[in-house]
């Protein structure tokens, strides 16, 4: 639901990262990492990005989204596992709290400029 705001941030961060000495830059690809537990829908984000990127050096750029699995670690027995569904209970101790290791990322890792 807030993908438009995220797309705006994305475009701003990418524009700021383009070296100023490059004339008429054109971004071909933006590489992102999106955690599976983040409240971001890739399809919506792509749609919003196309709207925001229009008439900027990012127009037509591809969003390459790497999905990051949800990994958690038990704070009691230190077991670490990938969460497939919404089950965050440690299979061994059941009650102990777990900490998130990954899965909430909304990150931009790099951009690729046309030669």
């Amino acid at each position, binding site marked *: 639901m807030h993908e438009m*705001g*995220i797309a705006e941030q994305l475009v701003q961060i990418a524009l700021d990262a*383009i070296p100023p000495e490059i004339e008429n830059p054109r971004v071909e690809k933006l590489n992102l990492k999106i955690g599976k537990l983040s409240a971001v829908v890739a399809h919506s984000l792509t749609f919003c990005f196309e709207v925001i990127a229009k008439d900027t050096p990012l127009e037509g750029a591809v969003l390459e989204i790497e999905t990051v699995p949800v990994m958690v670690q038990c704070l009691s027995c230190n077991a670490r596992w990938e969460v497939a569904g919404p089950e965050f*209970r440690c299979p061994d101790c059941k009650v*102990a709290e777990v900490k998130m290791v990954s899965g909430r990322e909304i990150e931009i*890792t*790099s951009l690729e400029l046309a030669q």
Partner: protein
Amino acid sequence: MEIKIQKRVLEANETQAQKNRQYFNDQNVFVMNMMSSPGSGKTQTLCKTLTKLMPALRVGVIVGDICTSNDADRLAVTGVKVTQINTDQFGGDCHLGASLILNSAQALDCRDLDLLIVENIGNLVCPAEFDIGEDVRVVVLSVTEGEDKPLKYPLMFRVADAAILNKIDLLPYLDFDAPLAVENMKTVHPQLPVFELSAKTGAGFDPWIEWIRIKVFEKTGR
């Protein structure tokens, strides 16, 4: 040519949230972010909570809605200091971002407050993603919703520090399985404190009020 960036996309919000947190710490005020789906009874729960906390605690409320000041008007009846944020001026946002909070908090003058409650926009998705500089997050679920809401919206129940199961006075008339709802919350967040209460009758409020009092005392010494 590839240019490395390695940046969190919500960094601007996170930076502002840290500034808010610093401001709240400087003012020695405890901040609670209340979230839920629309219609779970957040405002009524708050009204009842305020009448039990005040005047022993000095409380302020920031209310977020897309439109109308109805909730602020309802809360003002309790005598609480309240300010309304309407996000339609900002594009009908589905959540309160950190940048909207600081101005409202300053308008309330937090120096005179022990507790600031932010009633977020009714939505179980987006508010979970946005830190506003709060000390704790509380999610409200009501028995007129599905028992499986925690499983459908796991991020919200993961980021919450406590949960309220509201409208328990309606349980005799519904097929709602309250133990299952609590069990589903614990599946997503094993150590989550859950308070089962009714904002209408006042049943079950004592442990919830005690939890807030302890949290406020731990931070502010008041």
